[in-house]
């Protein structure tokens, strides 16, 4: 029974984690840049959801429709005015720049909302659905949205021009350029979409966790863990990695205690980086 | 000097090198030619220790080097250049040569924290000798990023030489050079061979192949399809078909 509970909760968590990590994976896949500002994106989106909820009582899951486009625009602006200028240099320069952006965002959050914890208490907060084990309604709805997002992404990547262009650039930028795809334009769009996806993740996480300016940090690390597990630029890999982390974390929390829960993502990250940098896909291939 | 036995490399579903066997005599110059994707660079990578063979053996000077790492292979006496030049961009020419002398097969007796000292005998060359031989003496104190492509290729050869290597693998050294530069490069490779070293070169530039090599090995789709004096090999029907396709 406990095992079933771990499995179900783990998968639900994993689904949300996947949405959280897609944006990071997309940006890395297209530009080979690790977006260290990703945590800030999650955090700001979470605060956005909170503000909409606290001020105007808008359900955050609806509020996402406002937050996500804003995130897309901000992402493109960030790319065009800052990232682009360092994209040609050593990869660490872009990473450190984005890290700096993340620091600024955190400071802004402290100034705007102080370090106090904020929560979003949804109306269906305590009701549960019985899936063999009682699962809070909030989690079920959030998981459904995560599933829908994943499905949507899958469709976009398979059937739209944008999706195919992204996959081409991720595979081989030079060949993509030769095939007529403008890599700089794709990069800008990918950065925007990556930020928007991060915003979706942030909103979802905001309904489940306590929000404060340090919100982004642990989730950024978990996002790294997931994309490394997932082979860095493969969307199905990211989903698999997210599910793995979700289940592993839940299991650690249940069998080991809250402290082990946090440790799991770090340990997994270092372990995979060291043992199999290709992530789960490389395990499957060999 | 060098013998590869049934060397094979598979990457997932793709077999890049398929059961290649060959021996290379000391002091010889052999060219490895073949269409793109034939597995030439992969073969080099295996010999140089950058890639582990899926199966097969590499025997150098009587020692089994199969599966050894790149730095171990270098210390055993094999040096290489890269298809796309990879110098140490921010280091000077002189530093390239010094580093190669310190860490290559000639430098193994020097203790770890010694200041950058000059080292001795036995297939090893002095820094200035290497610089003179490769024609880089005038540019010795310039960083690699200021060099032309031709000079970068010279630098890579100088670097490989300076390690004290007895066998040098040259990967498309003539690519992208003008006619004049190609002539100079050919002369340099001849000087290298004249020091008693063995040379194996991958080349697409045919004058280099015919002008330098005593023997040509043709690779196509990972397998050796011809082996002999360059002129004969280039005239053979099988080789023509590999390069040009069916008539």
């Amino acid at each position: 029974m406990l095992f079933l509970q771990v499995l179900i909760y783990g998968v639900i968590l994993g689904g949300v984690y996947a949405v959280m990590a897609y944006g990071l994976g997309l940006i890395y896949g297209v530009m080979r840049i690790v977006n260290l500002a990703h945590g800030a994106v999650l955090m700001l989106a979470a605060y956005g959801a909170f503000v909409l909820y606290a001020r105007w009582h808008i359900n955050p899951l609806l509020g996402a429709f406002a937050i996500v486009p804003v995130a897309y625009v901000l992402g493109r602006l960030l790319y065009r005015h800052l990232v682009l200028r360092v994209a040609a240099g050593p990869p660490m320069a872009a990473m450190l720049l984005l890290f700096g952006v993340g620091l600024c965002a955190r400071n802004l959050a402290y100034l705007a909302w102080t370090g106090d914890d904020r929560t979003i208490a949804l109306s269906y907060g305590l009701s549960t659905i019985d899936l063999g084990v009682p699962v809070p309604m909030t989690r079920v709805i959030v998981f459904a949205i995560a599933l829908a997002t994943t499905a949507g992404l899958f469709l976009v990547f398979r059937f739209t021009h944008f999706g195919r262009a992204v996959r081409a650039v991720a595979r081989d930028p030079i060949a993509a350029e030769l095939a007529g795809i403008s890599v700089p334009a794709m990069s800008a769009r990918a950065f925007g979409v990556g930020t928007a996806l991060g915003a979706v993740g942030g909103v979802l996480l905001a309904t489940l966790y306590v929000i404060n300016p340090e919100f982004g940090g642990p989730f950024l690390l978990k996002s790294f863990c997931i994309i490394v597990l997932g082979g860095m630029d493969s969307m199905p890999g990211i989903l698999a990695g997210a599910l793995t982390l979700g289940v592993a974390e839940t299991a650690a929390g249940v069998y080991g205690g809250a402290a082990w829960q946090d440790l799991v993502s770090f340990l997994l990250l270092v372990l995979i980086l060291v043992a199999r940098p290709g992530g789960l896909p490389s395990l499957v291939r060999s | 000097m060098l013998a590869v036995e049934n060397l094979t490399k598979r990457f997932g579903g793709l077999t890049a090198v398929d059961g290649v066997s060959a021996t290379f005599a000391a002091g010889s110059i052999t060219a490895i030619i073949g269409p793109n994707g034939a597995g030439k660079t992969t073969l080099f990578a295996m010999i140089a220790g950058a890639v582990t063979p899926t199966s097969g053996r590499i025997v150098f000077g009587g020692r089994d080097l199969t599966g050894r790492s790149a730095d171990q292979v270098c210390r055993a006496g094999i040096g290489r250049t890269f298809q796309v030049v990879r110098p140490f961009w921010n280091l000077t020419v002189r530093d390239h040569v010094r580093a190669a002398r310190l860490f290559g097969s000639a430098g193994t007796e020097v203790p770890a924290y010694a200041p950058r000292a000059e080292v001795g005998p036995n297939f090893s060359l002095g820094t200035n000798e290497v610089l003179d031989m490769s024609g880089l003496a005038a540019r010795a104190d310039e960083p690699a990023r200021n060099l032309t492509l031709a000079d970068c290729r010279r630098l890579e050869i100088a670097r490989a030489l300076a390690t004290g290597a007895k066998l040098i693998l040259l990967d498309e050294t003539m690519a992208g050079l003008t006619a004049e530069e190609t002539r100079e490069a050919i002369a340099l490779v001849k000087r290298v061979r004249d020091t008693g070293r063995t040379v194996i070169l991958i080349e697409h530039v045919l004058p280099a192949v015919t002008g330098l090599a005593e023997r040509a090995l043709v690779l196509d789709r990972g397998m050796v399809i011809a082996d002999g004096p360059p002129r004969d090999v280039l005239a053979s029907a099988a080789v023509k078909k590999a390069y040009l396709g069916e008539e």
Partner: protein
Amino acid sequence: MTRYALLAAVVALVFVPVVFGPQASYFTRLAVIGLLYVACATAWDLVGGLAGQVSFGHAAFFGVGAYVTAILVRAGVPLFVSIPPAALAAALYGLLWGWPCLRLRGPFFAIATIGVGEATRLAALLWEPVTGGATGLTLPIGRSAPLVAYYLALALAVTSIATAMLVRRSRLGLALACVREDVDAAESIGIRSGWVQVQALMISAAIVGAAGSIYARYLFYVEPGDVFAFNRSIALILMTIIGGVNSLWGPPLGAVLFLGLEQVLAAWFPSAHLGIYGLLLIIMMLFEPRGLTCLLSRTSRSASAA
């Protein structure tokens, strides 16, 4: 910098506390922190600048050194005796995770170090019987502590710079430079890239561990949220970037500037630390990612060319 100027500076630093007297505790406090910063930034640069592997997790070494000293001193070991084991412990810790992680290139190594740094902090929080958990460990107070800490910090800073100088001039330094430029090409000339990088990390770790050791004795208190703080690792990166990566005098310069910046921020913009550091990083990356010393040499070159 001429040898004499350097010697004069060191001598001055040795005698300053005597001149100012033990009452100048603000100065002493600042000086101890500043000298430890100089030592740590210089040590960090051996890995981040010379070896070219940016580490976001150096606080782990600082903390290990601090805790080892705390534990030993509480058990009755004198401070001086506790410093070498602290440094050694940090170096061994560096060997432990450095050996597998240094094989990773660039951004991946950086991410791994974030993981290691944070995992170390969490481990310290959890391992209560040894580390005292979140409440940390207190050390017995000594009367002359600030002065002792000052001279120890000065000695460490000098040692750190001297070590960096030696390494840069040695065979190891040349090997690290080659590895930084191109790992595969370095291996093709016989350099054991992994081992060479690990050596740099161990030396760096030992110095930072010793700094943690001195810090512990100076503060009389170690707790995970302080010594293992991610912000410490970030500070090291900032110091070196500001002052100049991969140079001998860049990190010390950056350390001193950062110290000044910290004080200014604490006095006038206490709630803008993160934002200012962030802006600094952004500006540096946009205009001169290699730091002030590079900027200065660039402008002096163009000035003399004019």
